[in-house]
């Protein structure tokens, strides 16, 4: 068998910057989520005004640290749910028999060398449920898809659905010190604590923060 052709200069340059494949371009139907714009603008502002390692107030910028999220990392990914298209339309359910949703996140772009430091699940619910609310609030359950009853890895109480619901999956859906799985499939349920109409999931996404030590010089450089 022939050895693969060596990458051209442009591809070699992209590989050095952490892109194993040449990016093909922006998808047509994917807007940039506001949280990513926010994170970019805050970082860009700090870097542009501060100069190396300095914030406008003179504090030192910590290298390889996402200040806004309070965790170590140099890569933040907004991963959309791939399971929405396969979900059947939700029937109007009676209280106590609310539907389960399977969400699927493709994490194949995460390289094995990257160490996850935050995996924040973000859920948005349809407006009617979001504004109505229930007296006792809601309970979110997260389990690996296909797992039997009792395999819930995360339970979280949710006072109201007006704001996006966030849940930390690192340490729950996969071990804190392990690499990210290539594909994450989860079953979610959102049950009202008091009799009420079921919630209807509008959108799910994952905000994944990782640290690639190869691109983090203070970690990569050995001490002499």
């Amino acid at each position, binding site marked *: 068998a022939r050895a693969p052709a060596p990458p051209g200069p442009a591809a070699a340059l992209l590989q050095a910057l952490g892109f194993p*494949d040449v*990016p093909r371009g922006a998808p047509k139907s994917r807007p940039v989520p506001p949280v990513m714009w926010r994170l970019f603008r805050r970082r860009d502002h700090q*870097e542009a005004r501060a100069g190396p390692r300095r914030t406008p107030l003179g504090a030192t910028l910590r290298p390889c640290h996402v200040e806004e999220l309070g965790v170590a990392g140099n890569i933040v*990914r907004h991963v959309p749910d791939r399971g929405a298209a396969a979900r059947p339309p939700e029937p109007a359910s009676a209280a106590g028999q609310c539907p389960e949703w399977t969400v699927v996140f493709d994490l194949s772009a995460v390289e094995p060398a990257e160490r996850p430091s935050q995996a924040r699940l973000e859920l948005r619910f349809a407006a009617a449920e979001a504004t109505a609310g229930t007296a006792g609030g809601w309970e979110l359950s997260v389990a690996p898809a296909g797992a039997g009853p009792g395999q819930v890895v995360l339970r979280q109480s949710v006072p109201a659905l007006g704001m996006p619901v966030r849940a930390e999956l690192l340490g729950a859906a996969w071990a804190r010190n392990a690499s990210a799985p290539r594909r994450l499939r989860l079953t979610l349920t959102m049950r009202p604590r008091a009799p009420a109409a079921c919630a209807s999931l509008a959108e799910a996404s994952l905000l994944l923060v990782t640290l690639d030590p190869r691109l983090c010089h203070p970690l990569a450089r050995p001490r002499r």
Partner: protein
Amino acid sequence: EAEPAVGGGPGGACRARRLYVSFREVGWHRWVIAPRGFLANYCQGKCGLPAALSEPGGTPALNHAVLRALMHAAAPSAAAGLPCCVPARLSPISVLFFDNSDNVVLRHYEDMVVDECGCR
């Protein structure tokens, strides 16, 4: 978009000069969301004496560079030549882009902007 070197060659003392990297120019604009480009700068200039001793407040030259410049001043035909004018202090930028899985990614890159040059 680069500041031309003094006199069309590597003249003048070693210092940072303006270089704007446009992602459109390098063909990355279809997947880089922001920024559209950044001021990367570059280093150019002579590192002969006295420039190799650095200006007050500037980046100090390496001792090796000072001795090399001295050697060059004493014997200009020495094969080693003058020290090099290279980045001495750099700062990071963050880039927002789409990857091949249609994820929106914010990535932090160290050492992308030349803030100061020095003789090394």
